[in-house]
C-alpha cells in the first residue's frame, strides 16, 4: 500500500511535469500560427515584401517552438499507457476515441502542411502556400479541440455507462462527449488564451527589436497584427472564463471552493481579490474582497449561495439549475462507493456461479450506487479535497495577470496607432520584456487551477488517481521523472538560447525576406 501511494505520487509528479512543460509551448504554437497566417494573408493581398520578411521572421521562432512542443506532446500520450494503465482500460473505450481523431484529423494536417509552409515557397503557388499556412493554424486548433474534448470528459464524464461484465466504462453517446458544454468552453478558453500569449510574445519581442532602431517598421506591423489578435483573445478568454466558472460551480463545486479558499459559503458570497490563505484556520487573511462577487461569478446571481469545502463535505451543494440543496455528504458517498464496489464483487461471483437472481440483484445495486463508485477507494472525506493553497494562489495569479493583459493589449494598440513615438522608448521595451514571463505564468496558473483543482480524480467521482495507475515500482517512475526533468531542462535552455539569438539577430541587422 505504501508503495502504491508512492507510485501514485511520482506518477502524478511526472504527468504534471510533462503537462506543465508541454503547455509552455502549446499556447505559443496556437497563437503564433494564427498571427503568421494573418501576416501571410496580408502579404498575399498586398504583395508587399515587408510583410513577407515580417512573416518569415516569426516563422523561424514558430518552428523552434513547434519542435519542442511536438517532443513533449508525444510523452503525454504515452504516459496514459505507461503510468496510468488502469485508466487506459477502465475508460479507454471513451477516452481513446478523441485521441485517435486528434491524430487523424489534426496531426497529419499539421505535419503535412508544415513542410509546405517552411520548404514550399518555391515549390507551390502563392495561393497553395497561403492555404498551407492556414491549414497549419487550423490543424493546431483542431488538435486542441480534440485533446480538450478528452480532458473535459475526465472532468465532466458524459455519454457513458458502466458495463459490469467488462468491469469498465463504455461509450453510449459520442455526440454528448464531443459536444459537451464543458469541452467547448475549455476549447475557447484554452485556444483564445493561446492567442493572448502569442500576442504578448510578439509585442514583447517587437518592443525589444524596435528599441534597437533597426527593423522598426517590421516591429510596428507585428504589434498591429498581434495587438488585434491579443485583444480579441483576451476578450474571448474572459468571456469563456466566466462561462467556465459557472460550469465549475455546477459540475466541480469542490474545485471552485478550492479556487477561492472557501470553507464555509454563504448567500451573497464575496470574491477574494487578494489574500493570504490560512489552511489551518480555514480562512483567508489580509484579504481584499468584492462583495457578492463569487455569487455573481458562479451563478450570475448576487444573492445566490456558493458552497465551501466543508459545506460540500457535509452535503450542502447546488443543483445544476443553481438551487441550494442538501445532498449526499462525502461520508455517505464513501459508503455508497463501497456498496457499488461490493455489488460488483457480488456480480462477478454470481456470474461465475451461474446464479441469475443474484446477478440481477447485484446489477440493481451497481446501478443504484455507481454514481459515487470512485469514493469507495477513500477512507476519509478529506481524501476527496484537492490541494487548496496551490489552487487558490494559481487562480488569483491567473485572474490578476489576466486583468493586466487586457490593459496591455489596449495600450499596445493605442501606442502603435496613436502614439508611435512612444513605441521605441526604454519604458516600452521594459514593459514588453517583462510582460513575456507574466503571460506564461498566467497561462500555466490557469492549467494548474484546472488540473490541480480537480484532484484526486482522474475521472470525476468515478476513478481517483490511486485506482488509475500502472503496476510499476515507485523507483522506476522516480528514475524516469528525473530523466525527463534533465532532458526538459536541457532542451528548454537550448530553446531559450536559440530564441534569444534569433531575436538578437532581428534587432542587430536588417531582416530580409
Amino acid at each position: 500500500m505504501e508503495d502504491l501511494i508512492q507510485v501514485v505520487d511520482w506518477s502524478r509528479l511526472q504527468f504534471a511535469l510533462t503537462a506543465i512543460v508541454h503547455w509552455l509551448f502549446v499556447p505559443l504554437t496556437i497563437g503564433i500560427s494564427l498571427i503568421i497566417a494573418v501576416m501571410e494573408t496580408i502579404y498575399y493581398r498586398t504583395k508587399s515584401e515587408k510583410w513577407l520578411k515580417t512573416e518569415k521572421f516569426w516563422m523561424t521562432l514558430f518552428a523552434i517552438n513547434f519542435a519542442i512542443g511536438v517532443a513533449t506532446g508525444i510523452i503525454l500520450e504515452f504516459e496514459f499507457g505507461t503510468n496510468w494503465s488502469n485508466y487506459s482500460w477502465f475508460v479507454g473505450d471513451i477516452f481513446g476515441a478523441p485521441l485517435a481523431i486528434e491524430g487523424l484529423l489534426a496531426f497529419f494536417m499539421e505535419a503535412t502542411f508544415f513542410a509546405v509552409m517552411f520548404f514550399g515557397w518555391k515549390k507551390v503557388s502563392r495561393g497553395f502556400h497561403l492555404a498551407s499556412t492556414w491549414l497549419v493554424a487550423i490543424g493546431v486548433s483542431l488538435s486542441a479541440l480534440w485533446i480538450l474534448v478528452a480532458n473535459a470528459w475526465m472532468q465532466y464524464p458524459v455519454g457513458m455507462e458502466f458495463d459490469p461484465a467488462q468491469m469498465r466504462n463504455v461509450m453510449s453517446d459520442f455526440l454528448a462527449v464531443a459536444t459537451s458544454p464543458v469541452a467547448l468552453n475549455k476549447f475557447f478558453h484554452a485556444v483564445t488564451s493561446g492567442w493572448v500569449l502569442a500576442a504578448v510574445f510578439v509585442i514583447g519581442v517587437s518592443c525589444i527589436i524596435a528599441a534597437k532602431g533597426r527593423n522598426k517598421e517590421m516591429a510596428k506591423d507585428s504589434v498591429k497584427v498581434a495587438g488585434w489578435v491579443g485583444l480579441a483573445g483576451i476578450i474571448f478568454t474572459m468571456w469563456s472564463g466566466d462561462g467556465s466558472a459557472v460550469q465549475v460551480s455546477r459540475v466541480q463545486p469542490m474545485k471552485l471552493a478550492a479556487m477561492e479558499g472557501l470553507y464555509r459559503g454563504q448567500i451573497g458570497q464575496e470574491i477574494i481579490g487578494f489574500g493570504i490563505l490560512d489552511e489551518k484556520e480555514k480562512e483567508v487573511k489580509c484579504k481584499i474582497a468584492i462583495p457578492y462577487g463569487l455569487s455573481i461569478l458562479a451563478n450570475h446571481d448576487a444573492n445566490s449561495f456558493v458552497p465551501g469545502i466543508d459545506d460540500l463535505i457535509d452535503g450542502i451543494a447546488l443543483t445544476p439549475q443553481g438551487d441550494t440543496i442538501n445532498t449526499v455528504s462525502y461520508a455517505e458517498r464513501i459508503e455508497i462507493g463501497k456498496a457499488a464496489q461490493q455489488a460488483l464483487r457480488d456480480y462477478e461471483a454470481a456470474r461465475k456461479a451461474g446464479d441469475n437472481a443474484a446477478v440481477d440483484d447485484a446489477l440493481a445495486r451497481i446501478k443504484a450506487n455507481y454514481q459515487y463508485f470512485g469514493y469507495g477507494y477513500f477512507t476519509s472525506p478529506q481524501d476527496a479535497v484537492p490541494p487548496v493553497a496551490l489552487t487558490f494562489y494559481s487562480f488569483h495569479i491567473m485572474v490578476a495577470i489576466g486583468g493586466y493583459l487586457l490593459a496591455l493589449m489596449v495600450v499596445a494598440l493605442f501606442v502603435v496607432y496613436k502614439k508611435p513615438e512612444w513605441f521605441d522608448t526604454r519604458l516600452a521595451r521594459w514593459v514588453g520584456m517583462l510582460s513575456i514571463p507574466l503571460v506564461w505564468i498566467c497561462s500555466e496558473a490557469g492549467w494548474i487551477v484546472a488540473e490541480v483543482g480537480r484532484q484526486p480524480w482522474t475521472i470525476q467521482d468515478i476513478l481517483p488517481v490511486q485506482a488509475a495507475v500502472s503496476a510499476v515500482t515507485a523507483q522506476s517512475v522516480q528514475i524516469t521523472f528525473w530523466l525527463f526533468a534533465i532532458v526538459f531542462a536541457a532542451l528548454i535552455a537550448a530553446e531559450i538560447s536559440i530564441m534569444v539569438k534569433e531575436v538578437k539577430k532581428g534587432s542587430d541587422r536588417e531582416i530580409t525576406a
Partner: protein
Amino acid sequence: METLQIYWWLLIAVLGGALVFLLFVQGGQSLLLETRGSVAKNLIVNSLGRKWELTFTTLVVFGGAFFASFPLFYSTSFGGAYWLWMAILFSFVLQAVSYEFRRKKGNLYGTATYDAFLLINGVVGCVLIGVAVGVLFFGGQFTVTRGNILDGNAPVISVWAPSHGLEAITCWKNLLVGFTLFFLARMNAALYMMNSIDDGQKFFNVCRMKAILNGIIFVVLFLGLVAVILTSDGYTVEPDGRVVAVPYKYAINLIEMWWVLGVLVLGVVLVLIGFALTAFKKSYRGGIWWTGMGTILTIVSLLCDLAYNNTCYMPSLTDPQSSLTIANSSSTEFTLTVMSWVSLLVPVVLLYIWYVWGKMNATPLTPKEIEEDSHSY
C-alpha cells in the same frame, strides 16, 4: 462486432505498415554514422528533415488508434513493458528537436550533439520498435485480471514481470525483429536518398552501395525471421474460450488465410524487385517506390497473420489465459462503429499527403537549395 474488430485490426496493420515504411527516416539518421563531410550530412538531414514529422505523426496516430480500438493492449503493453516504451519515447523526444536545433546559433550543445541524438533515435528507436512488435509474436510476461480494480491495495488490472520490458529487449527473437526492421529502414533510406537528393554521381553511387549492402543484410535477416515465425508456437482461442498453444500456428494461419499469404508474397516480391532493379541497373532511382509499397504490404500481411483466425496477437507467457486477442481487448461495438465512420476520412488524409509529397519531391534536393533556404536544417 467481429467484423468491426477485424476492420480495426486491418487499419492498425495499415498504419503499422506505413510506420515501418516511414522508418526510413530513422534508417537515414543511422546512416549519419558512416557519412563523412558536413555537406553530405546536411543533405541527408535536410532530405529526411522534410519527412520526419510524418513518421513521428504516424507513430502518434498508430498509438492513438491502438488506444481507441484495443485499449487493453494499450494498458497492458505500455503499462507493463515500461522500460521498453520509455526508451522508445526518449529516443523520439531527442529526435523531435534535433532537426530544428542542430544548426541554429545558440543551440548550446553544438551540431554534433544533435546529430548524435538523430543517430540514437535512428538506431535505438528503430530497433526497439521492432522489439515491441516482436513481443506481439513471441509473447510477454504479463497477467490480466479485471477484478483487480476492486482491490484497493493493488488495483492494477494488467501486471507485467518485474523486469518491465527489459526482458523483452534481451530476447533474441525480439531483437531479430528489431534488427530486421533496422536494416530494412537503412535500405529504404538509401533508396529514398537516391530518389530525392541530387548531388552528383559520387553521392548517388555511395547511396546505391549502401542500399545494396543493407539490402543484403536485410534479406538474410528477413529470411531468418520468417523461418522463426513460421516454426514458432502461437496461441489460439478454442470455441469454449480456453487459450491453448498450437505448434506452427502462424504457418497454419497463412495456409488457412490464402489472401494473407498472397499479400505477403506480393509484398516480398515488390521489395525484391526494388532491390534487384537498384542492384542491377546502375542509374535506377525508383527503387524506393517498389520497396516502399512492398514494405507496407509485407507488414500488413504479417500483422494480419498475427491476429486473425482466432490467434492471440499478444500471448502471455505467464498465463496463457491472459493473452490478448482482437476479441477480448477491443473497444465496444458502439465505439468501433463511431471510429469507423471517422476512418472514412483516411482516404482524404492519404490523398493530401500524396499530393503534397509529390509537390515537395518533384525536384531532387540539391546543396544549392539548402544554401539558399533560410530555414534549412
